């Protein structure tokens, strides 16, 4: 399992990228989806995910909608127009970061 400390700086990118592909998701769904696609290697902790979602919502990158689901209420997140632009920036920044890390960790491969 990947150290949560390493993930901290990438959390926003993960959330934004998933929402750009899935249109809308709720908190628990995000944790489960990340766990599934990484075969359990990346496990987002609730204590990190929700503050990140709320920060992105506060910045106007995500919008939310409450919906009744069975006997409880579920909060769905989706990208705003500003959020859709942010996906491109975040992905470029992440790709640059990965390339730079490769240069440091595996200089022979690059």
């Amino acid at each position: 399992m990947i150290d949560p400390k390493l993930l901290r700086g990438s959390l926003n990118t993960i959330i934004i990228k998933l929402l750009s592909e899935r249109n809308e998701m709720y908190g628990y769904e995000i944790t489960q989806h990340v766990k599934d696609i990484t075969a359990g290697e990346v496990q987002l902790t609730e204590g990190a995910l929700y503050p990140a979602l709320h920060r992105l919502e506060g910045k106007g990158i995500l919008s939310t909608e409450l919906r009744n689901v069975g006997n409880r209420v579920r909060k769905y997140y989706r990208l705003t127009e500003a959020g859709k632009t942010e996906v491109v920036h975040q992905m470029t920044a992440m790709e640059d970061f990965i390339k730079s890390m490769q240069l440091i960790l595996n200089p022979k491969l690059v």
Partner: protein
Amino acid sequence: MNKEGNNMKEVKLTQEQINAIFDFTRKKYVRYYDVQLELVDHIASEIEVLMGEDPNLSFDKAMYKVYKSFGIFGFAKVVEQKGSALRKFWKRRIVTFLLEYFTFPKVVMTLLLSVGFYGLFWILPLIAMDTFYWQGISWGISWGMVMVLQILYFKLRKKRKEEVKLLVVESLEGTQWMAVIWLWMPIYSIPVGQMDLGYALLNSLIFAVFSILIYGVLFVFPTWLEDEVKTYYTHLRPQSA
């Protein structure tokens, strides 16, 4: 059947169990309904999965297991950081609201107010009374404005029927009072009634912006909350309604 092909019983929590999670979040000092809603759905979803994987696992044990996954700070970090994100959000909206009064056509209102305060604090002292008294009058007026603001605000607030505590409301109130204090402070530090044009203009402008902020607190900012509050109130849980 789950993805791995294991037989996993599908569990759906009852209304009583959902209520028990609400009570649990309150016991863990989550006082805000908007935060409780999201936490309850998350905890309930996880409990359903855990109980589905292990039919012998009790509801209480599953709930505690999920709570532990929130880390040593429990729900406190979620509440604290949501509050911080909301305060930043409201701060941006309040700043944008005030900046609008520096663009046409609203800038006319800012200029008229500034001229009004300039006349009150600089022209009148020249023709009547000592500047010493006008300093006191300036402070008195700013105090009066804040007092009237508080009285009117809490009167209007009482009219709003508040069924639950919402962090989104509390964070706006906290941010708006901070803004009032921030603009109120310079009024004390700039002397009035002096002939220095820079001081005069600055003080008049601050008084004008202060007045606009007071108007915002009383009549504009509450409208920002209307949709938010309505949304949460339409999703009140049965026993809260």
